[in-house]
């Protein structure tokens, strides 16, 4: 096997997105803890990265030095990453059911020491973009054409370090770096506009020297288009403000709970069943 960016048809990708959503719900409910809604908002972008012709990977050789890299800075959303990696052939889907169990490498947050294919150990918010800047600098130094993609939470944008990384990426004109803000509107203790409102992200970050796009990130077509454009930008770092909904795909089920953030808790088995039925 060699490095390959898999590109499915949009129809196939929509099916993949649904599979990812189902697996996210199943594995977190089985684990009895975790962050399903934080994972669900990110599904379209992650599907686009893994199956829309972007991440050049080799599951047989996850450490291939020429690979592209995806860093999930909002590490608590790792079920979406495990689900995508499973579909991409890194491990059988069934193994993800050991999420968060003692002895399982499917830890509650990404741990690169225990799982080949994980590009950064995250879980302390705010550090992923800086790690991405370092990887992008290193790859460029080696003359590689690999890209680095980093997904950040909108609440996570409160960390000062993210803004330090934004400045550094612009300074070094990192055209091989793409940041995606999963703007799902919520963080742990409430709506991001109430806790710490840093919107509009694009208007704030563009003046640093970034290329920016703002999209509906739960629309697969828009996600694919934005990733395409971001890849084409090679003289400056690129930002995709991915406006999403936390828990997208199962919102009517969450509505019945009266909690549209539903942060950091799994669905009960009954709710999970309803959510899976809703996804169809």
């Amino acid at each position, binding site marked *: 096997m060699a490095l390959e960016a898999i590109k499915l048809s949009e129809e196939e990708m929509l099916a993949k997105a649904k599979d990812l959503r189902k697996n996210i719900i199943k594995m977190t409910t089985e684990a*009895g803890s975790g962050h399903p809604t934080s994972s669900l908002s990110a599904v379209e972008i992650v599907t686009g990265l893994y199956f829309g012709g972007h991440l050049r990977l080799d599951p047989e050789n996850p450490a291939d030095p020429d690979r592209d890299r995806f860093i999930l800075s909002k590490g608590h959303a790792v079920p979406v990453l495990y689900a995508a990696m499973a579909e991409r052939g890194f491990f059988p889907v069934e193994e993800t059911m050991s999420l968060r169990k*003692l002895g399982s490498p499917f*830890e509650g*947050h990404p*741990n690169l020491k*225990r799982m080949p294919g994980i590009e950064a150990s995250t879980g302390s918010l705010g550090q992923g973009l800086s790690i991405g800047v370092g990887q992008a600098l290193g790859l460029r130094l080696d003359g590689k054409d690999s890209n680095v993609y980093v997904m950040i939470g909108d609440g996570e944008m*409160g960390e000062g370090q993210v803004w330090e990384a934004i400045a550094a990426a612009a300074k070094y004109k990192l055209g091989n770096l793409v940041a995606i803000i999963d703007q799902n509107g919520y*963080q742990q203790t409430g709506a991001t506009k109430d806790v710490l409102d840093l919107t509009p992200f694009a208007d704030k970050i563009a003046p640093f020297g970034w290329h920016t796009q703002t999209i509906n990130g739960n629309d697969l077509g828009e996600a694919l288009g934005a990733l395409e454009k971001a890849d084409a930008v090679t003289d400056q770092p690129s930002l995709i403000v991915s406006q999403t909904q936390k828990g997208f795909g199962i919102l009517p089920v969450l509505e019945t709970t009266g909690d549209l953030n539903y942060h950091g808790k799994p669905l009960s088995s009954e709710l999970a069943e309803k959510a899976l039925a809703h996804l169809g």
Partner: protein
Amino acid sequence: MAIGELSGYQMGQATRDAFGEALADLGDEFPNVVTVDGDVGNSTRTEPFAEKYPERGFNVGIAESNMVSVAGGLAGTGKIPVVASFACFLLNNAFDQIRMSVAFPEQNVKLVGSHAGISIGEDGPSQMGIEDVSLACSLPNVSVMVPADGVSAKKATRAMVGHQGPTYLRLGRPKVPALYDESVHFQIGKAITLKDGSDATIIANGIMVSIAADAAKMLEDEGVNTRVIDMHTVKPVDRAAVVAAAKETGCIIVAEEHLHHGGLGAAVAQVVSEEHPVPMGYVNVGDCYAESGDPMGLLEKYGLTAENIVSTVKAVKSR
């Protein structure tokens, strides 16, 4: 069997829950108390205070370094800021801010770290504060407390707010056995002897006190009369209690839910080596990061068990 059961304790409150109740209760008495949060007040349990006194609760978002220096500023205006996050994000993420905005200027800031230790379970090592006591103890002027149960956590909360100067209060996520009733005397820097004994001493704090009590019970059945000391204050450590234990029982085993270096074990060993050297042993997380898993399974896998304390006591006694 649940921890503490062997020694006859009932399961009680998590120390974070006790802290949250106590803090909300003392808001009228201490009108200068304010809270500073980093988007985790519902986890650290500052939320009840912030809901009761909305104008005195500040949630600055996911921004721990800013949070700590803001607390330093509030203290500079005479407020008593209680600044809380997960132990790891507070101590590790904002360490220089704690140093420069709190410890060095000796600001009256109350640092509170919840979710300490590996017993947080499934969230895994990135969320486990296991270096926090070492980091906090390394700072001049900072008192460091690790209460073992709900009642002592409440009393520690009150003592912390009443104390003039920077403090660090370490709290756990899971429920722990109720060791004390309201009559217990809690004073910063003064250890509590949970059980007296003459053949060996286990000095512990946090969740390990209940586990040490179980170990003492097991040792008792084997004829080893073991003293159990709840060293809820790591800094300043109760030197008199340590020296007495060394002199009267001849050996000391330190049990804590923390890395081997820089925590309670190190604090006790310094006193022992300075004042009355005796054989010592340690039960702690060692020198590694743990993993995701269920809390009890993790305690077992990483050796934080009564059985391991028992065998450590025996090994140390036979030296």
